[in-house]
């Protein structure tokens, strides 16, 4: 099969889909041109713990599955822990992705980072270096960087 059972499970039954009206951290990455856009909504409490998370994704099966898995992996975690989530970890948690789909897991990692960057910005704090996206912005191009 193209995708592992876990990918298919998260694709068919995505966890944490939707928007979070009161979110204090929102990030969107991707580009309609590339066919995938991911938006992450986080609620982060005073202790820096992610208490709630939702996502919206326009994209392929692995984009949806990685979004879903990533939300599960950061829910209840601290900012610090979420910051350290790598795309490889998301892909691994899904029992792997086809090589040419690995860029989607990058997108999930980046969507979280974009949301965390937003969190710092909203608070008027400096955005940590490791939250800077490779292509210098939220709307990075999948075709040039992601693949």
């Amino acid at each position, binding site marked *: 099969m193209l995708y592992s059972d876990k990918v298919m499970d998260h694709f068919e039954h995505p966890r944490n889909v939707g928007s979070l009206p009161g979110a204090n951290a929102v990030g969107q990455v991707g580009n*309609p041109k590339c066919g995938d856009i991911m938006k992450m909504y986080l609620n982060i409490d005073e202790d820096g713990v992610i208490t709630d998370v939702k996502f919206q994704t326009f994209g392929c099966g692995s984009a949806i599955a990685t979004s879903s898995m990533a939300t599960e992996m950061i829910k209840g975690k601290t900012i610090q822990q979420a910051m350290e989530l790598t795309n490889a970890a998301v892909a691994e948690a899904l029992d792997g992705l086809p090589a040419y789909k690995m860029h989607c897991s990058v997108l999930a990692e980046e969507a979280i980072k974009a949301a965390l960057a937003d969190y710092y910005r909203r608070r008027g704090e400096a955005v940590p270096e490791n939250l800077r996206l490779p292509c210098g912005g939220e709307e990075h191009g999948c075709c040039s960087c992601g693949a």
Partner: protein
Amino acid sequence: MSRFIYADHAGTTALSQTALAAMTPYFTEQYGNPSSLYRFGQEAKADLERARADIAACIGAKPEEIFFTSGGTEADNWALKGVVELMALKGKTTGHIITSAIEHHALLHTAQHLEKQGYAVTCLPVDELGRVSPADVEAAIRPDTVLISIMAANNEIGTIQPVAEIGAIARKHKILFHTDAVQAVGHIPVDVEAWNVDLLSLSAHKFQGPKGVGALYVRRPLRLPPLLHGGGQEKGRRSGTENVPGVIGMAAALKEAVAQLEAEGARLSALRDRLIDGLTRLPYTRLTGDPENRLPGTASFVFEGVEGEALLLHLDARGICASSGSACSSASLDPSHVLLAIGLPHAIAHGSLRLSLGADNTDADVNAMLAAVPEVVAYLRNMSPVWDAAEQKPTWVVE
């Protein structure tokens, strides 16, 4: 077949029972090598020649103008590379080929390969319905144009091209004309005379024949140099031990398809139009391809705010086999070159769906698809950050 609805007949088809029955004896009983001298081989040869004649008759050709290949891809490769080599044998090592932006990759990638070797290639644009303009073809002709290659019908959006008009232009300018008729043969009337074609590709598995067998029609007295060298089969034009069962199966399937062409074409067109009618009612949804001149079985769409692969996988979960653009390119990141060529923005081209119908599809199948597709489209749109669920419209400004 009750397990699921197969709506990817433009991708491949099941072998017809007629074709299977025709082929079966050639596997373990009539397995003789047609190139051998003994009766057992000569009988296979005679059957092979009967198949050749049957196939020729189905496209208005003479038997000696049909050369068997391993499929549409080989036929397309051979047509282009063969013409280029023919020219090289006449001392012309460069030249110009006219084709279209919406050809199958078997054609386009071969043309690109020739381009790298110094050939000039013009990829004509198409209009928003996917039509090549015969006037554009004529305008593109240069003194060194050696070949015009325009497909008969497109595999992604079903548009049927004005092949006969393009053929007439080619003839007028004494330029060889090839058509990739892989999607046309067995589905719409094909006549090499009326179309004025010199070369025509076909592939058996698109009309319920076996996979891995096809043919190239080569108008006499054109002597196309071989692509595959060897033992000299197919009058020295295509070497390799003949795939007798494959060819027999192809002939049986094609005869059957052509005999049923009119009735089945009408039946499929009606099913197709129900699909088109039902699905284009969805908001921000368009039919792709020509609403009039289109393959009987092919309904193709784009849904804004939906990504094609996700759509396919959800349809699959509901037991519907469909395709998004060309089957072969579904592993690629870029949206289909055909959808871009008809002027769709990338973002929208990603949301394509092709439902291609065939012999086993029924009214009930269409009903099931008319129920499933809108559900999945709505579901995916609702989880999309670029769709306004309340307003039922996309939030994006595309390109």
